[in-house]
């Protein structure tokens, strides 16, 4: 069974990304096949925020899992597409 989605903060940027990433990496359920980050409440994300998501993606992959991004806003989706990270992340709009 997959753990519940991790909620990302309203602003996932250079001033918040590092602390958030470290907290989430600590709390990730070992051996979960699928972990989701709920981005529905995330209004703003920058390259540091993307870096934090990539870091989690890589951590999960080493454990055999995958990271899904749930319900990113149009602006966040636009940034993901601009940086071509939709090739890396699985984006789910529920």
């Amino acid at each position, binding site marked *: 069974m997959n753990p519940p989605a991790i909620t990302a903060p309203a*602003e996932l*940027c*250079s*001033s918040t990304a590092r602390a958030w990433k470290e907290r989430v990496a600590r709390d990730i359920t070992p051996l979960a*096949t699928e972990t989701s980050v709920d981005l529905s409440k995330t209004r*703003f994300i*920058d*390259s*540091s925020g*993307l*870096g*934090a998501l*990539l*870091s989690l*993606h*890589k951590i999960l992959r080493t454990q055999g899992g*995958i990271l899904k991004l749930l319900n990113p806003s*149009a*602006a966040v*989706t636009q*940034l*993901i*597409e*601009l*940086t*071509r*990270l*939709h*090739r*890396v992340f*699985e*984006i789910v*709009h529920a």
Partner: protein
Amino acid sequence: MHFTRQPSAGVRVDFQATLQSARQAVREVVAWLDQQNLASDECHEWELVLAEATGNAVVHSESESPLNIEATTTTTGVEVRVTDHSTGFDWPEKTALPEDDESEHGRGLFIIESLTDRASYLRGRHENVLQLQRGRRMPPRPAEDTSTTLEVMTTELSACYEMLANIFRLGADAGRDISAEALAANWLEEFRQLASADFLTLRMLTPDAAQLERIAVSPATSFVTPFLDVGNTDLVESRACISRQDQWFDGCTVFHHADPLSQRSHAVSGVAHPLESGGEVIGVITFGVNKAHWEPKAAEINVVRSLGDFLGTLLHTLRRRDEANHSRLIKRELQIAADIQRSLLPLELPQSTTVQSAGHLTSVGEVGGDFLDGIQLADGGRLFVIADVMGKGVPAALFATAFRSNLHSHLDLAAEPAKLMRQLNLSLFTELDRSEMFITAQLAYLSADSLTLRTCGAGHGPLLMSDGIEVAEIGSDGPPLGVSEGHEYAQHEIHLKGISHLLMHTDGLSDSSSSEAQITREMLHFWLRGTSVAGMDAWAARDSLRQMHRVFHESARVRDDATFIILTRAHATIPCPNPQSLTHASR
């Protein structure tokens, strides 16, 4: 932090060299831009650009000196300057995304350049200035705002509805009596249009998971290699299967020479997406365009991923259903063949006051090629027959049926087994020869007074007989039926005075590929002589030989049909309390 509103449509915010202060400064500037009637998405993009610019400035800052952002607007554009007092860095001539898609750093400058019309970095001795400019869009009117929002919502709802409608239609199609391949072919064509792709290929894993089998392609006229080795990760589709991750390719991708994508006549770009069901990879769907570069929208990718996953799961289920149906069909056919074979056997073998007969037939699997018969003839004599059709399964059972029909059609020749054998060979030769099959057989006619035995063999093992002192073999001289058309078979006539036990058997009784555990000819001789000495009746002798065969063949782990008939004389005057003369066992 120091915030200064400048009278000439400008603002300046000073801030300390910390990420928190920089963030707050950006918020202040963006709030001001919002007041200048910039569209909300413009404000958001400026927020992103400034976050990247100030973040960089803070990271490179080595002194306590404050940094600042200055912003001005005109009727046509916005200009922002970010000033720091660090040693600065070299601004690249051309910014680009990191080569490694998964790199955690290196996107900031690319974002800044992508979202501005002009970005210039002036590096001084004690001060660096990043100057950013961008044309201003017309502020949207409220009515247009609502209209645009409604339009976006309608488009999204429409896409969701279309996706759901397609999933329902796909589910309904799968419920019809349609093969997995036909379903895939129909739907791949639909996917191609939905994804605005030029080509699609669907592959499913073979049952042994060693290969990716081409199930359908779109356009249907495309030629695509039918099988790919899953272990060859040089191939894009195999790599998607193994890694369970999307594999992107474009005009810069160097394809392995065996990769089907390399066989296209022009540059292609696209993605190979692994399909999963129940946590297992079941196949790969690849879609692409005939262009060196392709930037599909996330929504387009989601459509193909979602529908592809759904189609893959459906196909997986359909294929399992087809395999189960096929297996059931084969089993049913074999059951019918086995029923036919059983129906060919006599219910009982003929008995008399002076000669008892008992037989046994063991079939390995559902259907074997062995046959036996015992027929009470009109002249008072009896005909015993044992035969072995080459091979097993339905073809062997069909030839056994034909053999029996011909045998019963020519019982007028039963007293002369050689003539009967010749007739059987003539009747069956054409069909056996065409099918490259043959039948070995032995016919034994016992006269009405039970004193004379006439035998004829066609490629069969010898008939054994014993008087309790020794065992004699009556040879089987002729070729099997179906080998030599018109062959004149030899006949042996034996006077049975003193003979107590006779054994007719197929090869399966004594042949075995294992030299360590087999019933040899010598063992059969020894057994028959002992049976004769013990005065064993036909049923007891039959059960004894069955037991010996079972023990030897189980220890040798060899499984073959085994059929035999035992005739006993003199000692057979005592009737068996349960005279079941014929037994049949299946393994």
